[in-house]
């Protein structure tokens, strides 16, 4: 049976050039399906990876109760001062609490690739802010001076937006800022931000002394319960949401990730149905063109099963080629490519497409399923080619 199937498969594959157009169309349509699926999955995985890497267990994010995102939250300077003395808040070597009151503002930036305006998050931060981001590293320049129009920018901002080179003065809205530092946070969403002194931001954007979020470093991940208990007991704090930073970001990303996947899979499946019809048609034509050959082989003594397997193998090889082509195209064109999307605060989160082994596997399985289903009926047909077709004169 193996020898028979091998011989028939070999013949089928060698005769592919005679059906080059249709076979190529099948390979390309399957490649397109896999590419679309992998594109969406790479986007979702890349976004997930960026957001997953953001936030640590021992940092608490404090927002106004029920606000869910920083943009919707308002906190007062009083609340900040009370929290400075809360239990569970870690201190630095000098004994100062590791706490940062922050203001999060969407400003306009010019995208490098399209030259169009896009929202960019500017964060007003306190001097402790770098200590509240685990992998913060000032890769070039220096920290801004409090009370000045100086900014430091994340590496992803520099990659995606124009005018943020070190030493440049950039106009944002009606204010001019000088870029004095470039920072990295190990690929997390903070790299998509521009940081300035909280006092300056509050002043220029007329926010008085209001804050939107407060971040504190906890003495340990478990200390969050002490902080919660403290906040509940104090009437000035009992309307606050206190969240572990990692959970906060996971929650922020979940919706977008789900949307990407919810669009990606159904779109790919609809396209897969089209590719399946194409594969079916190609394989049907393949069997049709070889009716007399198949009948001759059967007359010689080859089994119907071997003829069917030969057809199925041809379909599977075409679909696997399509799958590999689609995966290779997405990998070469998009893997690691920088993209940005709206983050939770209607601002751009810059992330990289990430083509993972898991999504390549999903794409290949989809390709193989298309090939199998597309080849199944033609395979059955090739097993039941009437033997009398041997006398056909084509």
């Amino acid at each position, binding site marked *: 049976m193996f*020898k*028979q199937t091998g*011989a028939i498969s070999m*013949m089928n594959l*060698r*005769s592919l050039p*005679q059906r080059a157009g249709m076979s190529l169309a099948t390979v390309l349509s399957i490649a397109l399906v896999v590419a679309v699926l992998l594109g969406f999955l790479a986007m979702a995985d890349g976004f997930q990876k960026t957001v997953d890497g953001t936030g640590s267990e021992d940092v608490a994010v404090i927002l106004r109760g029920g606000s869910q995102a920083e943009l919707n939250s308002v906190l007062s300077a009083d609340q900040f001062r009370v929290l400075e003395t809360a239990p569970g808040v870690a201190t630095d070597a000098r004994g100062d609490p590791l706490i940062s009151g922050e203001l999060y503002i969407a400003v306009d930036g010019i995208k490098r690739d399209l030259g169009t305006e896009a929202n960019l998050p500017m964060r007003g931060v306190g001097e402790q802010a770098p200590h509240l981001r685990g992998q913060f590293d000032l890769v070039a320049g220096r920290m801004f001076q409090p009370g000045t129009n100086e900014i430091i920018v994340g590496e992803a901002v520099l990659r995606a937006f124009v005018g943020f080179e070190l030493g440049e003065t950039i106009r944002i809205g009606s204010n001019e800022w000088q870029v004095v530092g470039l920072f990295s946070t190990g690929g997390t969403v903070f790299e998509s931000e521009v940081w300035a002194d909280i006092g300056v931001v509050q002043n220029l954007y007329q926010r008085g002394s209001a804050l939107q979020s407060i971040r504190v470093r906890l003495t340990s991940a478990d200390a969050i319960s002490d902080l919660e208990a403290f906040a509940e007991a104090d009437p000035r704090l009992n309307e606050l949401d206190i969240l572990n930073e990692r959970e906060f970001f996971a929650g922020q990303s979940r919706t977008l990730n789900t949307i990407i996947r919810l669009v990606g899979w159904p779109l790919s499946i609809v396209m897969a149905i089209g590719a399946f019809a194409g594969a079916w048609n190609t394989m049907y034509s393949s069997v049709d063109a070889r009716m*007399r*050959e198949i009948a*001759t*082989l*059967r*007359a*010689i*003594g*080859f*089994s*119907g099963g071997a003829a069917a397997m030969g057809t199925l193998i041809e379909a599977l090889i075409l679909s696997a080629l399509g799958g590999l082509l689609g995966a290779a195209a997405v990998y070469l064109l998009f893997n690691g490519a920088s993209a940005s999307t709206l983050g939770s605060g209607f601002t751009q989160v810059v992330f990289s497409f990430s083509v993972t082994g898991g999504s390549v596997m999903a794409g290949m399985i989809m390709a193989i399923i298309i090939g199998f289903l597309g080849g199944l009926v033609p395979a059955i047909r090739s097993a039941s080619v009437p*033997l*009398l077709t*041997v*006398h056909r*004169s084509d």
Partner: protein
Amino acid sequence: MDTLYELTDLSKRYARGKETITIFEELTMTIPQGDFIAIMGPSGSGKTTLLNMLGGIDRPSSGSVVCEGVRVDRLSEGKLAQWRSQHVGFIFQFYNLMPTLTAAQNVELPLLLTKLSGKQRKERVATALDIVGLADRKGHRPRQLSGGQQQRVAIARAIVADPKVLLCDEPTGDLDRVSADEILETLQLLNKELGKTIVMVTHDPSAAKYAQRELHLDKGRFIEQVQESV
């Protein structure tokens, strides 16, 4: 001579709509081993249908086809395929070679159904191509060969597994006179030298002269004409 085939009360009917077409009715004949028969007759007389039944690629409506004691018409599809691979070599009017395979690969096809090793298969293929005079064309694909050469490759394929009977359907129908004569001489050689039993369907009276005997099929009956072969 031993009997190879025994056909008893063989009938073949086709349904065409509500009408039943009878090809032949209660045909009885025997074919001895080593025979070379040319079956002639007008179009639609059932020559090819008879050949198909001898080769086990069609079944009779009633009656029996017995080959060396085996009821061929009663074999299951799987057993029938196996029987065909061991007992019958087919030669078709349009050669029916696989266009993507070389002459040697085409000839090797029936041997893929045997337990022979690759080396043994290669030897058998070389012998078969040698017999038909195409040893030097083994690497050529069908489209690189003339019609006569393609038909000789088809003959090599038919004999490579050493079947007892060769069934030829208009083997020279697509060839010029010179090529046709070469093919018929080859068939005659296979009959005389290797003892192959040959049943050949043909329209061509000059082709039929190469056979030991001619059978004329007309209105479902045979009219035998014994002749001296060429």
